[in-house]
Structures are given as structure tokens and as C-alpha cells.
């Protein structure tokens, strides 16, 4: 009984799709943000799996960089959401329609 590398890639694809669907169907900005994190993690899982398939560590290094960028993104994104909440007293994505014609 062994696990083909494709199973990990399939699991990562399923997690990515769950993240995409979550961003599309949820209206809570923080939950949408968490779904973005889910997608970043699934891509990291793909990178680590390919790193193992190819037998070198460069995929893991790239995955490390993705984690750094995700941390920076969370910092700025949550600050933006807090500002938005101060303005609108809501984190519903449908309330952010200042550019609506």
C-alpha cells in the first residue's frame, strides 16, 4: 500500500476548488479572506509534492516564500478590513459598493 504522488495533488486541487467556491459564495469579508488562505495553502501543498517528485528542495523554498507573502497579505488585508468596518460598521462584501455606477 503506497500513496501515489497524484493523490496529494488531487487533494490540493480539491482544497483549492473549495477555496474558490468559498470566495464566490460567501459575503463575509473575513471568511472570504480565510478562503484565500486556503487556496494559498493548497498551492503550497502542490509545490511540496512536486518538490518530492523531482527530488530537490527548490519547491519547498518557493513554498516558504509563499508563506512570507501570505503573512504580509494578511497583515495589510486585515488592516484594510478594520478600516472598512470603521466606515461602514459592516464587513459584508455587498456593502462595499462606493464605485457602483
Amino acid at each position, binding site marked *: 500500500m503506497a500513496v501515489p504522488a497524484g493523490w496529494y495533488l488531487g487533494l490540493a486541487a480539491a482544497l483549492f476548488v473549495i477555496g474558490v467556491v468559498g470566495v464566490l459564495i460567501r459575503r463575509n469579508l473575513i471568511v472570504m479572506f480565510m478562503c484565500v488562505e486556503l487556496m494559498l495553502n493548497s498551492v503550497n501543498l502542490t509545490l511540496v509534492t512536486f518538490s518530492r517528485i523531482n527530488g530537490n528542495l527548490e519547491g*519547498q523554498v518557493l513554498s516558504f516564500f509563499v508563506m512570507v507573502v501570505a503573512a504580509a497579505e494578511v497583515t495589510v488585508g486585515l488592516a484594510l478590513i478594520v478600516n472598512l468596518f470603521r466606515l461602514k460598521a459592516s464587513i459584508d462584501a455587498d456593502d462595499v459598493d462606493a464605485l457602483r455606477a
Partner: protein
Amino acid sequence: MSGVLATLAAVVAQVGGQGIDTGAAASSGTAEFVVFVIVAPISLGAALSVILLKNAVHAALMLVVNFFTIAVLYAVLEAQFLAVVQVIVYAGAIMVLFLFMLMLLGVDRELAFRDRLRGQKAAAVLLGAVLLGALVVGVAGRYLGTESACTGAAVSGDGPPCAGLASVNEGEGGNVGGIGVLLFTEYVWPFEVTSVLLVIAALGAMVLGRKHEDESELVDTNRAERVAVPAGGEPAHQRELEASLPEEQ
């Protein structure tokens, strides 16, 4: 949650076993199979819970479970350094930030259901299914055969083999040493750029998070009044607008 802890213990045992006796544990692949079969459904279920649970705090806790399962999979995939970093950075720092924001804003109540685009959910699920099919066929399809398993055994089949990281992780001080050598030789320039990125992100969060003495420098909240601004009457309207702003929260 106890299931996650049990699988974590199993993985720790498995990784420990590999450290002691690399050949036997790595070549059988049975432990890897057991861990994958246990962890993958937990991971998928936690991810589904993130998008299906109405309470945002519950969704955040489910996301923590998902991050832990991914850390377990990293350990199985011979990425020990990333497994630890995943727990510290994602399950630790980032999720604490998320939960802190949820508690600070007090927005754990359910939002009123207003579907502005009719049929959006059905369309999203349909497009998600199409994307899943495309990803599984296009990315994972070539590696689904048993010859792509990273057992270190001789492969028989025409699928692409899995090289495995056993030899890489044994040289240059192990997994952490190998990643460190790559980071500080070949990828030193991207590494420095990410440090600049982190400084910029910290500065940006401070700028965005500071208290605004003059609320009118932000976008105003009341769209109806903004639309009704007369062309010439800017100062008088500005005073009126400031008076109508809600109290500081």
C-alpha cells in the same frame, strides 16, 4: 479535534521512525498510506466547514484544523521544516490574527442573507466542479498511477516516477540545512526582497491602522448625502456631513 491529535502523534511516530531507520519505513509506504487516508478526509471536511459554517469564528477554528492537517501532510512529504513553519506561522500567527480581528470587530453574528446576483451559488458550485475536473486531469492525472508512489522501490509502469527526498534530506545537515543553503546561496536575492516586503507590510498596517483625527479624510459613509453634494456648496455641506457621521467606535 482529538482525531487530529491522534494523527499528529502517528505522524510524529512515523517521522521519528524514518529518522532512525530510513530504509525500512520509507520503502514500505504503508505508514504513509495510513496517515494519508486518515488526514486527507479531515482536511477536506475542515475546508468544507470553513465555507459552510455560518459563524465566522467556527469557520476560523475549522481553518486551524485544516492547517494542522496540511502540516501533517508536509511531514509525510519529507518537508519537516515546512511542517514546523506551517504550525508556527499559519496555525499560530495568522490564525491568531484572524480570530483577534473577529473578536475585535464583534462580527461573529450571521450576516443578513441578500443574494444580489440570482443563481450565483449554483454557478459558483458548477464552475468549481469544472475547475476541479480540470485540475485533477491536468495536474494530478499523470501521477495517479502506483508507479508514482515515493516508496524508493523500483518502478514498473510508464507513469513518471517519484524521486523522493531521502537522499537530499540526508546531506547538508538534513532538510533544514538544505533549505538554508538554498536560501542563502541561490535564492538570496528573493530572500532579501521578501524582507523588504515584510517591512513594507508592517508599515502599511501601521498607516492603515492609525486613528484618524479628521474623519472626513476617509471616504464618507453616507452615499445618499455624497451623491446629493451641490456643486458650489462645499464648505456648508462639509460641516453638515461631519455632524452626520456616526460616533467614534
